[in-house]
């Protein structure tokens, strides 16, 4: 009854390819948390898994943001930063340093990416082309927002400097706003609303002046 499944050439080829893909994991050092024989030390994390590790990242970032606020209490309070701007800043902080999985869908599948995100957001979203100002699309991902799905695009320069564009649907608000600026931790954000969509453009290493140039380019790309 028990055949050797790998006697077929296609499966053999698949097997070979899977080994090439995943065997490097065998040589990675095993993280400390997996070597410790301790049943209880990670209960907090099990709860986090249930909520999804992305949410964990967001939560940690927001917490860090709060602490930062407390720490800067002597600084005059800035105007209330909307919740989605904080989310955008945290998403930038979480994903832009990522080496292996910066995006869910790469720029080589841009058409699929845009179709997929448009479908999930229920609105036509576009990934602006920023090549003329030196930023190429890395790709994008779907994120949870305050009330539904959010599209997240990542761009980078040749030197690997990254910016991210957070796009959410604005329920029933059909309006336009000027660029507004906020900073969360070391992440600077320009945000605006354009018809049905709200945008937040984040960077950790551009100056405010440089970032607004990018924001202008994004706006012009989206409103030709």
């Amino acid at each position, binding site marked *: 009854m028990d055949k050797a499944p*790998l006697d077929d050439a296609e499966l053999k080829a698949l097997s070979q390819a899977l080994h090439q893909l995943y065997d490097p994991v065998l040589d*990675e050092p095993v993280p400390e948390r*997996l070597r410790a024989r301790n049943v209880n030390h990670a209960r907090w994390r099990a709860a986090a898994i*249930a909520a999804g590790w992305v949410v964990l990242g967001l939560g940690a970032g927001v917490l860090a943001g709060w602490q930062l606020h407390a720490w800067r209490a002597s600084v005059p309070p800035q105007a209330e930063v909307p919740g989605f701007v904080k989310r955008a800043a945290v998403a930038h902080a979480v994903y832009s340093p990522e080496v292996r999985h910066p995006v869910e869908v790469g720029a080589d599948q841009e058409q699929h990416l845009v179709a997929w995100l448009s479908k999930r957001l229920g609105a036509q979203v576009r990934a602006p082309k920023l090549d003329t100002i030196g930023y190429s699309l890395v790709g994008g991902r779907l994120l949870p927002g305050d009330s539904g799905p959010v599209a997240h695009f990542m761009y980078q320069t040749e030197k690997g400097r990254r910016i991210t564009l957070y796009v959410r649907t604005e329920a029933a608000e059909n309006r336009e706003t000027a660029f507004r600026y906020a900073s969360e931790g070391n992440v600077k954000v320009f945000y605006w609303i354009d018809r049905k969509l709200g945008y937040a453009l984040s960077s950790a290493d551009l100056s405010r002046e440089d970032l607004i140039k990018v924001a202008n380019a994004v706006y012009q790309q989206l409103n030709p």
Partner: protein
Amino acid sequence: MKEAESIVELIPRLRRYARALAGDRVAADDLVQDTLERAWAKFHLYRRGTDLRAWLFTVMHNVFVNQLRALRPSAPLDEEMPELAQPARETDTLVLRDLDAAIRRLPPDQREVLLLVALEEMSYDEAAGALGIPIGTVMSRLARAREKLRSMLPGLPAGGKQLKIVK
């Protein structure tokens, strides 16, 4: 305890399988950690002399299924995914990155069977044991997984000629 040492020795294997199953490094190690915690807690249920690796894969399968259940949205999303744009490629080339993406698009039950058989190189019998399903179900899930991969990967001809594998 000899088995305890064996569990530690099997961690890299568990990590490899989890990486292929869960995709993301952090999610995969979370899966391994939960599996290990459960394995230590339930170790009295392991029957000495039986295949420890198979038992650990069963534990991981149960943890994985529970995680999916906790995360599952009300409607399955993968069925409505827009098709991936297929760039034209030489048909005798299997691109690894495409394979990784295609594996990710398989329904989890088919992904598990495919990985146990093709990556872990288990027999149908062993895979059936690890997943707690009949051997016939292993074979039909594997067949469906291969069917889907063929449709997603132009470099994977059904004929089974030698493939060139490209990073």
